């Protein structure tokens, strides 16, 4: 029974982990808490439902949902980071919150506030290992999450753009002096973040077969917690944090009931912030602006 909870927690955690990676990338490189991420997650989830209901084959639906995440994220970049350099530091955070409200309400207008049931695009296959049931699509989702982060890790460490990003994370002014094309590299952070978020939205919609205009809030808030628990700015920390939050959540439901979940998860977040604000895998806290 406990093994089953652990498996369920890890599966749920893989959704949080992808969102946490998007958050942690924006914080790590740009020092920017991007509140539009819940909106992008929701748009991807709702589009998945919309396309699958319209009868599109699921790989195409997935592709369109993920692409929409990347595109909308560029739109957000135009109004947030572009303006950051010549204005007060809280502006991008505020604008990204406004984008969240914008996306949620546009989805409400387009599709109504009901929770929609996402049609399952393929037969559910599950393996039985001992007493536990492992759903194969969810396992594939977890695999996708880890593979995507491994690719991102390679991108950051091995490529020219990745080196540019790490320089900007260190110090944007020095990066400019050293000839890093900041205004061309920064959108990469937003595209990658948008794609990860949208992938997560797709996986959530397909695995839990539900989508609603508010689906982003809950998941993204857990994603933020996962990012902090793992260590802000650390992508493997985001994966660890995401899986941990997923497991804490399923065990909290098991032991405390559905209403105890928020106390357990966000209590853990508060405790980490007070005791070890760098998170489990984080290094030294940088002097953070807002």
């Amino acid at each position: 029974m406990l093994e089953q909870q652990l498996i369920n927690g890890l599966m749920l955690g893989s959704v949080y982990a992808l969102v946490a990676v998007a958050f942690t990338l924006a914080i790590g490189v740009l020092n920017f808490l991007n509140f539009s991420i819940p909106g992008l997650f929701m748009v991807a989830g709702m589009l998945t439902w919309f396309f699958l209901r319209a009868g599109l084959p699921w790989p195409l639906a997935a592709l369109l949902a993920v692409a929409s995440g990347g595109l909308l994220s560029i739109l957000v970049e135009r109004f947030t980071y572009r303006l950051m350099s010549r204005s007060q530091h809280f502006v991008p955070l505020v604008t990204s919150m406004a984008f969240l409200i914008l996306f949620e309400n546009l989805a409400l207008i387009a599709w109504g506030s009901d929770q929609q049931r996402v049609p399952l695009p393929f037969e559910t296959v599950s393996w039985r290992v001992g007493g536990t049931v492992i759903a194969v699509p969810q396992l594939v989702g977890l695999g996708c999450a880890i593979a995507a982060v491994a690719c991102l890790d390679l991108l950051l460490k091995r490529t020219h753009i990745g080196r540019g990003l790490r320089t900007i994370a260190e110090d944007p002014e020095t990066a400019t002096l050293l000839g890093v094309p900041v205004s061309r590299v920064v959108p990469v952070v937003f595209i990658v973040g948008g794609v990860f978020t949208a992938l997560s939205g797709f996986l959530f919609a397909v695995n839990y077969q539900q989508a609603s205009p508010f689906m982003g809030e809950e998941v993204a808030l857990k994603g933020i917690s996962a990012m902090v628990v793992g260590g802000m700015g650390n992508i493997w920390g985001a994966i660890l944090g995401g899986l941990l939050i997923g497991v804490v959540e399923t065990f909290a439901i098991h032991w405390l009931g559905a209403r105890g979940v928020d106390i357990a998860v966000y209590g853990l977040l508060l405790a980490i912030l007070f005791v070890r604000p760098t998170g489990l895998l984080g290094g030294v806290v940088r002097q953070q602006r807002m």
Partner: protein
Amino acid sequence: MSGYLESVLVLLAINTILAYAAFLPMVAGQLNLGVAAFVAIGAYSAGYLSNTFSVHPVPGAFAALAMAGFVGWLVAFPILRTRGIYLALATFALNQVVQGAILNMDAVGGASGYPIPEHIGFAVVATFAVGVLALVVLLFHTRFGISVTAVSDDERVADLMGLSVRGLQSAAFTAGAALAGLAGALYAHHFNYVEPQNYGVLFSIYVVLYVLLGGTQTVWGPLLGAAVFTLLPELLRGSAAWRYVIFACLIIAIMALRPQGVVVRKAWFSR
């Protein structure tokens, strides 16, 4: 006064108090994403006092203010150890924990909400709002206003000039929490029903957004922000979703064109 007009004006009064609840910590450089937590504490304290001990709503509102202020003062110590993004995240986590705690409290109805029969009219709510406004304006004509602005402008210099930075920061945080509690108590007694689902982090975000829309450089910015946030949607008369779409576009446009907010401080010297 028609019922519709009265409820709009009551919301305006409550939103004004909320605006100052978010404004006070913000001028001290803290982005408080946990305003809703203190509103909930105020609303439920006032409701509990009124329902269980039949306390009159007006002293009840003061008790709620004290209660939320006390909790704010208690959590200010660990929370103000963090800063910047960490502080915003800690207040956000606090918001979720308080909401979760209330959901689990069966004494105040838990998830099914909490009816509070004792009613107060527009006059009482408006009096409180005017009082809060006068108090904050007065406060910013004293040393406190200048000191707190100095702390948010440059903490180190403020410290060097002999200001108690920690004291000012926790005072601003506590005062904000207390005002949020007052707003919660007034809401609970006017609308006679509260439920924990309303006090999520999105509530806090809305409050922060309309304060920033008005601008945080002067004491009048939050008032304007609250007025625009409350009245504009009523004038537009579309569906609720369209109102928020327009509100969001307005925020994005203002942040792009005039990031200090609509009302700004007069420049004392030109640079």
